[in-house]
Structures are given as C-alpha cells and as structure tokens.
C-alpha cells in the first residue's frame, strides 16, 4: 500500500481532499518568548490550521547583547569571558575557537601538554553539552527522568571544571598560548573513573530512551532535513551528520591534536525504522558522538605528556594587520570566528558565525505540514542555545 510513510514524501495533511473542504481561517499563535519547549527566549509566530502548522516565523533577538560591539573595546585577553557567554552550555569550545583565531594570527606555539588538556576538556564539554541536549529533548517529549540521569552525569563534569577553572559554566580557562592551570594526576584518574562509569550509563540511556517505542514514534519521520537542504542553508554539526554526511571538521581539517587521534564520525543511517535526516537521526548522532568522545578521552589519558601548560605570549597582545576566519567543530555545529585586526590592542571587528543561528533559519522550511507537537520535537532536535543565536 502506498502511504506517506513509504512514499518518501513529506507528510502534509493540509493537502488531502477532506482537509481542503474543511479549510478555515488560519490562527496565529505565538510560541514563546517564554515557553519551555523553545529552550530559552525564542519566539515562533505560528500560523495554525487546527493542529497543523501552516507557517512558522522565528523571531530572535531577545537575548541580543551585541557581544561583537563589546569586543571592539576590549583587549584580546578580555574578550575570552565574553565569548564564553555566547554559548553558555559549551563555553570551552567557544573560547577554544576564539583563542585559536588569535593564536593563528600571533603565530603562537602551544605546548604539547596544553594541547592534550585542551582536547580532554573539549571532549568532556562535548559530553556535558550533549547530555543537556539529551535530557531536555526527552523533557520536551514528555519524559522527565532522563533529564535527571543526564544532570547527574553532567554534574560530575562540571565539578571537575569547577576545580580546574573556579567556575561551573563560564570558565575563562583556555588562554591565549595554552590553558590557565595545570591538571593534576588525581583529576586525570577521576576522568578515567568517569569514563568507565559513563559507558555503562550510556547503555542505560539507550534502553531507557533510544529504544523506547513512544520516543521513537514521536521522533522518527519528523522534521526531515535532507542533505540538499543542509547544504543550501549551511547546516553543520549533528544536523548535517544526521542527514547522512560524514562531515566533521575534526576529521576533514584536523586542528589541535585531532589528527593523531583515532575516532569515528557517526552519521544518521536510518536504522531502527528512522529516516535519514529526521529528528531521531539527529538525536542518535549525538548519542553516538558521546561514545566517540569517551574513546578520544581514553587516548588522551594514555598519551598525556608532562611539560608547561602555557607558551610564550607577549604581555600586551597586539595582532599584526590582517584578518582570519577560523572555525572548529563545536557540539552544536561549526563555530566560525572572523577576526579583523588593524594592528592595535583591540580587534577592529569580531564576527561570530553561530551554528544555532543557521539551524534556526531552517525552521520555516521544515515547519509547514507538521503537527504542533512535532514542531516542538523539531526545535528540540536541532539543540539551539539562544545565547549563541542572538550573541
């Protein structure tokens, strides 16, 4: 039988004959800015035809702090805390991108131990961020307990970060030339213990959520972003990999130590009755990425070398004239920093390419024809942080 499920087309109930007869005026509904399913202060203006979304127009800017303007009046070290505050769930990855942009202009050499600590921290942060995505996504779809499990594990990572940097969310830990503070062997041992424990934990999540019939029915064949759409809108990260593209900057253009490490790039392959590019694929990519991160962390723990943790950097940083566009693979996608210097102590222009901004711009494309509840699932599956969208 030919149904919408196997036809490969988008499910669009507005086009069937019966609904055409019943068609009435569209109702405008404001979802947000204060709404638990929008992950912050996103407002989506939805035009609905009964339970079905006809158009969705995202309105952003409620968290706009104009970090880019602030940066023009700060010296290069002073910008790091501001970059933290863009994506407050993956602050380490954000500051790493910015610091890499400055280092590439300065030509600073980062000591080996600092690189090891950086990759260790980045992957732990990736796990913490994906755990948050996992927990809140389950919460969006009506399951409360996965959120608590996820926060329990995330807490262990945050405790470690707190010891290292003195802060739980906004670290200012990765500095130009290296990292602020050394990591002790006791802390490394705790990371190892965490890895052993966490691998068991991941199996639990798989049984609890990934194989859950209700969860799968809510997410599979919903909010499909295929490969061509991802390219057209410039989507990256788990969204692009969920569409079946094996694109990961850590593999395609290795930076830091990633070239020496052995890990896989998980992609959405449509198993468990999912469709390539649907919400379930994006979710499962995140879950598999956590396993890969644990794999990377184990290699770091085996290979870490002793030595200094910060390289030689001038006291007052003045970048040479020029500009650079640096991008790295953050948990939510590729973050890009466009840094323009006029030779002074402050940047002439700092532009941040936010992956969430790009992914939010895809919502109007996937919304038409979805049920409102499915639209909530779609928003959750792209894992947006509004601090980064609005900057």
């Amino acid at each position: 039988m030919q149904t919408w499920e196997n036809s490969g087309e988008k499910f669009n109930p507005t086009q069937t004959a019966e609904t055409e007869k019943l068609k009435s005026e569209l109702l405008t509904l404001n979802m947000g800015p204060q709404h638990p399913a929008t992950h912050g202060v996103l407002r989506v203006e939805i035009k609905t035809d009964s339970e079905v979304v006809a158009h969705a127009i995202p309105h952003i800017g409620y968290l706009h702090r104009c970090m880019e303007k602030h940066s023009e009046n700060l010296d290069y070290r002073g910008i790091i805390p501001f970059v933290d505050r863009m994506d407050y769930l993956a602050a380490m990855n954000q500051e790493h991108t910015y610091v890499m942009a400055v280092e590439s202009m300065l030509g600073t050499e980062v000591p080996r131990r600092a690189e090891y600590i950086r990759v260790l921290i980045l992957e732990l942060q990736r796990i913490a961020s994906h755990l948050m995505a996992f927990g809140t996504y389950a919460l969006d779809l009506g399951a409360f307990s996965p959120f608590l499990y996820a926060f329990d594990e995330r807490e262990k990572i945050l405790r470690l970060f707190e010891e290292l940097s003195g802060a739980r969310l906004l670290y200012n830990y990765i500095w130009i030339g290296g990292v602020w503070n050394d990591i002790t062997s006791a802390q490394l041992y705790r990371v190892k213990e965490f890895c052993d424990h966490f691998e068991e934990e991941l199996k639990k999540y798989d049984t609890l959520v990934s194989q859950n019939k209700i969860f799968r029915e809510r997410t599979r064949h919903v909010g499909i972003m295929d490969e061509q759409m991802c390219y057209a809108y410039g989507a990256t990260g788990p969204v692009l990999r969920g569409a079946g593209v094996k694109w990961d900057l850590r593999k395609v253009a290795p930076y830091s130590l990633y070239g020496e490490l052995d890990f896989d790039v998980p992609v959405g392959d449509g198993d468990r009755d999912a469709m390539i590019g649907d919400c379930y694929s994006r979710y499962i990519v995140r879950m598999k990425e956590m396993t890969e991160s644990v794999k990377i962390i184990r290699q770091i723990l085996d290979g870490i070398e002793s030595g200094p943790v910060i390289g030689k950097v001038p006291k007052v940083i003045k970048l040479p004239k020029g500009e650079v566009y640096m991008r790295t693979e953050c948990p939510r996608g590729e973050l890009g920093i466009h840094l323009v210097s006029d030779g002074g102590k402050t940047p002439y222009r700092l532009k941040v390419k936010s992956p969430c901004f790009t992914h939010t711009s895809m919502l109007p494309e996937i919304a038409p024809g979805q049920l409102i509840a499915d639209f909530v699932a779609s928003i959750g599956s792209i894992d947006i942080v509004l601090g980064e969208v609005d900057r």
Partner: protein
Amino acid sequence: MLSMDLEKLSSDINAKVSSANAKVVKPEEDGAGDSSILIEASSIKEVAQALLDSGVNVLQVISGVDYPDYLEVNYMFAKFDLANPGQFTLKLRVPDKANPSVESITSLYPAANWQERECYDMIGVTFNNHPDHRRILCPDDWEGFPLRKDYKVQDYYRGMVVNPDEKMNWADREFAKRQEEISKAQQEKSQD
C-alpha cells in the same frame, strides 16, 4: 586550513563573469592571516551563480566590516565535499556609506536570507530583491546600525530611556576612566 588555490579561482571567476574584475587580496608585508578574493560589488549575483555551478555548495556566513572609506561585505564560502573540501572568503566593497546597496543572493543560497538580514541590521547594507528585508536582532523600529564605527545609541526608544542613569554601573565607568588616565600618564612619562 582547507585553503584553496585563490589565483586559479579568481581567474576562473573572471573567465565566467567578465564584469567581476576579481583579484586576490593578500595580507600586508608585516601582516598575517588569510588571503581573499575581491570582486566588484555590482557583479555579486553572477559570481555567486558561477560559484554555485562550480561546486561551491555552502555559504557559511556574511560578515560586514565598516572601514573609514567604504563598507566591506565578506562572504565565507565553503565546499562541503569530502573528496575535495575547501573554504575561501569573497569580498566586495561599497564606497557609498550613506546608501549602500548590494544585490541579494538569497535565491541562490537560502543561507543568505538570515545572514543578509543580520548584515543589514548591524552594518546597514541594503540587499536588493531580498524576500524578507527586515531587521533581525534589533527591534524593527530601532535607529542606526550598531556595528558602524560612528554609532551612537539613541536616547529614547518608544518613549523609554535607553540607558537610564540608575541602571548604569558608574563604579565600573569611573574605574575605566581612572585606568585610562593612569595609562596616559605612563605613556607621557615614557615619551619624556
């Protein structure tokens, strides 16, 4: 990182679009950073079409910069192709700062839709034939373009004071002022 042969790329662009006048901009002698391709502002749509045909499938970001004599719009293009990945910056310069306008490329790269809106919101470049040309981060009736170098915040927005005195961090400002005075005095001392 993922750099491409810009000389070849710019000659390819010139061969396809005669009005593009593409040339490679390199960092200065004592400078550092990436090279990029500079084209004529009026030819952006044809150039974008040529790039799209040649396999540059992703527009990542549009970044506007306000220079004293002109506004610069940077398009960061990328090739998301696992066999042959690449990335480069395409620049164009708009000398008319009072009424800057560039052709929109939203019909070719849907990613440009929001990026052009942000560029308009922050720098004030108007994009012709854009399907939804509105501000994106600031409110629709906000005045001025925040990332221009000569930007001054408006005093009132819809009758509300924008920066009320009781909400300013005066201690912070005084501290900054004092620091400035100290550094100035030190500079003068070192010059003597």
